[in-house]
């Protein structure tokens, strides 16, 4: 660490900007919450790939106040892999039969853009995570 560049006052704000979004997760808050269903059925149907694709997109887009969690089997094994998107102050939206491509589209259009990808939606506002 020795010989490191000394910080200036304006640098503090920059560090804060950069790290704060990474840390919001510690407070359980964020603009969107994505739940990837990871029951045995979900994993078998490829939920891991969905998760990887999603995390990949998130870091590429450099928007980091998005919370990604997992849940157990949602009871609709035939539609796995599934994911639920909850935007702040909006009812949860459930997507089914996902592929990495589909989740990318959902990410761009729904999570970032705020527009539901209607053709992929399974249900709206039905259930919560717990």
């Amino acid at each position, binding site marked *: *660490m020795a010989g490191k560049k000394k*910080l200036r006052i304006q640098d503090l704000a920059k560090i804060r900007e950069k790290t704060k979004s990474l840390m919001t997760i510690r407070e359980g808050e964020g603009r969107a919450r994505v739940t990837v269903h990871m029951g045995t059925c979900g994993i078998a149907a490829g939920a891991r790939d969905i998760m990887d694709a999603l995390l990949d997109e998130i870091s590429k887009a450099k928007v980091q106040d998005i919370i990604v969690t997992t849940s157990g089997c949602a009871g609709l094994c035939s539609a796995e892999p599934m994911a639920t998107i909850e935007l702040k102050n909006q009812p949860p939206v459930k997507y089914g039969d996902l592929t990495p491509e589909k989740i990318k589209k959902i990410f761009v259009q729904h999570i970032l853009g705020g527009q539901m990808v209607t053709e992929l939606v399974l249900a709206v506002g039905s259930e919560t995570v717990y």
Partner: protein
Amino acid sequence: MKHYRAHLLVCAGTGCVSCGSFKIKEALEKEIKKRKLQDEVQVVATGCNGFCERGPIVLVQPDGIFYQLLTVEDVPLLVEEHLLKGRPVKKLMYVPPDEKQPVPKMKDIEFFKHQRLIVLRNRGRIDPEKIEEYIAFDGYEAMGKALAEMTPETIIAEISASGLRGRGGAGFPTGRKWAACAKEKRTPKYLICNGDEGDPGAFMDRSVLEADPHAVLEGMVIGAKAIGAVKGFIYIRHEYPLALKRVEIAIAQARDNGLLGEDILGAGFNFDLEIVEGAGAFVSGEETALIASVEGKIAMPRQRPPFPAQKGLWGLPTVINNVETWATVPNIIRRGADWFQGLGTESSKGTKIFSLVGKINNTGLVEVPMGITLRDVVFGIGGGIPKGREFKAVQIGGPSGGCLPAKLLDLPIDYESLTAAGAMMGSGGMIVMDDKTCMVDIAKYFLNFLQDESCGKCVSCREGTQRMWEIVRDITEGKGKESDLPLLEELAQVCKDASLCGLGQTAGNPILSTLQYFRHEFEAHILDKRCPAGVCTKLIRYVVLSEKCTGCLSCKKACPTEAITGSLKEVHSIIQTKCIKCGACQEACRFEAIESQRDEAIQVI
């Protein structure tokens, strides 16, 4: 820094570390790697969470799920179920006493619900060994503001306006202390952070230093600018190795980043810090004694005036504040005096940290607004007394404080109310006692502590505490006389009046308050020769309750002196002449069949 979908916040305060939280962290990391989740899940060691009773603790964010009393064996299950399959593990969650359903989320647990975190705002949230994480949560913002936009006068005005009072015990207005030192012409000036937390049963400072060391550093830089100090010392007792280590790391990181040393943040201000390790003496907590200790001498208090603000370290102007006070400062500068003013009561502003310990369900560290009642703390946050026993007293303020009885449970917690009731805010130790605690024994305990910790300079304190201890010891051994109580009161009063420093001046409090509220217990010991709580060994006798005894032999096996007779499935009995009253039988009995009999007088030969 990387984006992780889940953060596992492992509590690494001393309480949890003592219960093996580092082993839990290791196991978690290993298991996560095994499950190939290392790129998705981050394991973070944080400072003390506060809920020490339930350690080791892991908080899973963003879900907010609170896992407690973990063992290494629980880890694979936790990782597989929660992190892989997304199913929170019920059996590792907190279940409130007298209830069956677990409370999964931290924010719903009674212990956390009623707290107001200001000084402890980063506890259990950041890794105290990473400066970036402190900065992420607005860290060093107040310092930047103070250095770039404020003058020493405006800083002092802000602190004065906030109404902040010293959190070390006496409650002296911080702004006034700073102003007095700023006024002094002589240089160099010094700052000291008093982290010699000697009160037994209190660990607020330790926790702040461990959980958020940068907050203390930031507060001190702001203070340095206010009074024009060039150098500061953080005094930490050597019994706190973890706190020492964390502060050392914090100072090094701050220096590396230009937040300490020369030309801080490019604002042209110089200030540096040094750690001083205490060597174990309660009296070092007194400010003049602490100064002597920093100078490498015997921690012996001296007469004030002159006050340290005028003549402190090496005879130069010095400001000494407690850890909690320093950690409060950045919050005030960042959020403004008005905001701080809005918290607490008329004369006591802000929040205070208490360590809630003893006979209480939720042992731990709590931060609450001033003015909250004792009842809210003990029963609301603390969850009441274990095993449904009766509340007897709460001891506040450490050896300088007093014991308050049940009838004062609705007393608001602020500096004046506590002092009026015969206790003291002190540094914030709160020890809860139930009906199995003997108040005479507690008085003896504190006097023993004080007579050992007295530096020995003043006759009143050295001899006074010793004589009081001797008298109370005799009372607990059944050798008390009626004339003892007025003599104790006289001694306590003189010790308070005549001693030089805070230690002696408050040494009478524990005895005066117990005499005031629990005189009947002293009288029972003196007149009836019995200990109503069943604690004082010389005044009790262990007996087997025949209706409860199942004849299981456990007590017989536990007895070191073969004082218990009886065979299997036969009611046991204790041969009193052989009994050494060690209490092993009572501990061994699963049926509560052994009582320390206390209703009948014991003849002392």
